[in-house]
């Protein structure tokens, strides 16, 4: 944590809320970008980032400075994203009828309709985004933290609240799943993947199933 952050936090704890604005300004882009890949839509990412900053403000007194401020903030955002997903899942299950069919209007998931599509500049990026979207939340998050944010195993472990070994194994599976998903998008469905050894068919459920035993 650098001196600016220390100063801002100290001033904020004295009641100068404008100092917190400096912290928001410094990290909002980075946090929003990471959250955008974990949450489902830009609107969700917006809510998660806003909640994360407000929660961080409320709990600033309990931040001891043992870790980087961003790591601490990231953890709050990660937890917020997970709980938002749970809430959405619960809402979705309420909207599902007894026969498992949705009773509400089905969501059009075709390309170009989702709000997030406006962010995708090229076809390649859209495919990649779609593949990421189909990963489980834990795998998606771990990939984002490692590759987009360049966090180390140790920092990821701190953010996710899991041991380093779990981070390593999650990253391992996340990379292979992403590869399978990208290959499945490129190759004929049902044809076994040449590199990972997974059947393309088995990849179809990746986005809906949770990770295997750690």
């Amino acid at each position: 944590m650098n001196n600016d952050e220390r100063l801002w936090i100290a001033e904020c704890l004295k009641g100068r809320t404008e100092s917190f604005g400096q912290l928001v300004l410094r990290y909002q882009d980075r946090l929003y970008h990471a959250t955008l890949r974990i949450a489902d839509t830009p609107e969700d990412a917006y809510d998660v980032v806003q909640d994360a900053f407000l929660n961080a403000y409320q709990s600033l007194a309990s931040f001891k400075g043992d870790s980087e401020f961003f790591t601490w903030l990231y953890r709050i955002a990660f937890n917020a994203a997970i709980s938002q997903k749970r809430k959405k899942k619960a809402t979705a299950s309420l909207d599902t009828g007894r026969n498992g069919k949705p009773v509400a209007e089905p969501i059009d998931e075709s390309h170009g309709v989702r709000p997030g599509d406006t962010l995708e500049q090229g076809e390649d990026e859209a495919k990649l985004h779609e593949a990421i979207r189909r990963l489980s939340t834990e795998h998606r998050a771990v990939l984002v933290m490692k590759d987009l944010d360049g966090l180390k195993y140790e920092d990821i472990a701190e953010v996710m609240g899991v041991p380093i070994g779990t981070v390593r194994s999650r990253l391992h599976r996340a990379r292979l799943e992403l590869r399978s998903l990208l290959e499945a998008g490129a190759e004929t469905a049902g044809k076994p993947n040449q590199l990972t050894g997974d059947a393309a068919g088995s990849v179809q459920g990746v986005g809906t199933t949770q990770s295997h035993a750690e």
Partner: protein
Amino acid sequence: MPSELEKQLITAAVDGELSPEQGQAFRELLARSQTAATLYAALLADRERLRSLARPAAPQDLWASIQAHIPQAIPRAPKPAHPFRRALVPAGMAASFLLAVGAGAHWLASSQQPQRLAKNQLQQLPKDDLRLTPPDRLTPPMGDEQPDTESPEATQPVGPPMPPAVVVTNDAPPKTADSSPGPKPADLLTAPSFGSDVKAFDRVAVKLPLLSPFADFANSDSQNALRERLGLNAATRVDLFAKDSARAVELLTQAGKSVNLNLIVETIAGERMKRKMPSTWIVYTDALTPAEITKWLGAAAEAEAAPSPSGNVFGISHVLAATAHEQKETQQLLGIDLGLTKKLQDPPANAHISSKTLEQVTSAIQKGDPAKPAILLTYLPPLVRVHPALSKDVKQFHELRKDRKPGTVPVMIVVRPSNG
């Protein structure tokens, strides 16, 4: 096709987190396997694609929106803000109670003094010429008594107690001071407040924490006090302040063997212990009796007393009854309702003993004393806690933890770092 281990090596290389030995093994793998090299190249390409994803800036109104919400977001004080804060609350209540008792005693003494003076005066007056009006007819009604609206004296305003009034008449039969009803026997605890019509309360129960240097738990007197306190509470919280909290937890872990404690160390907590990171720890168990908990803490105190270059590890300890706060905390940390405020019911004395019970007892005797499950966690602030459903250690604890046995009490031991 690369094996699972080889794939792990490849993904770790993509992560850029290989040790020198793994690096060597990885280079050898690439040299001998074309498939491995191709997978590595593909994963590297995926990583680069991820890295090159567009990095959209946060929406322009995000900053303003957060700033707009800041005034409504009231900062939360860290819990606890001060290590002795919890102890000060009951201590303050006790001080207030003692002050009230002292003031009440003073009031009682001062209100009786004028009565004695009046009695003395009465004895000096000619007995035939006076009639004594009982003091309780003139003084305002107290407690639950309803005022006598027909009596003119009863309309007097409620105020401080009056000395017995003397009315001198000629036509009334004489009355001696000795025949007048004395003041109502006042109970210090149930006496109404001064001159008010507030109803008397029945009982005041103040539970003070047991404060003791942890080292004293090696002595039998402190052990008796601790055992007694643990037996009184439906659930107990023990706060231990330690100069080296990681070492303190180690001592507790080792001492747990004395009561056959199976302490499950949550993974993060284990890593923090290994690294000697200053943390706040929490140990929870509901498988021990007060005697066993006392033995456990006593063993830790004895281990601490052994000569050590670093000196004493533990400082003061607070033992207090668990409240709804602890109930909520354990619920958040362990994910279930532990029923801390409910005392375990003893089985009825006339319960029938089934043949199954006999088998269980026989089996238990044959197997010896089963290990008692407990769990050690890092006591993190609520926002950064791992959800208990995601922790395999918590799951394991729940699997081992069965129905509470009679005589056992839930105990939550919090080990906190302190400066001195």
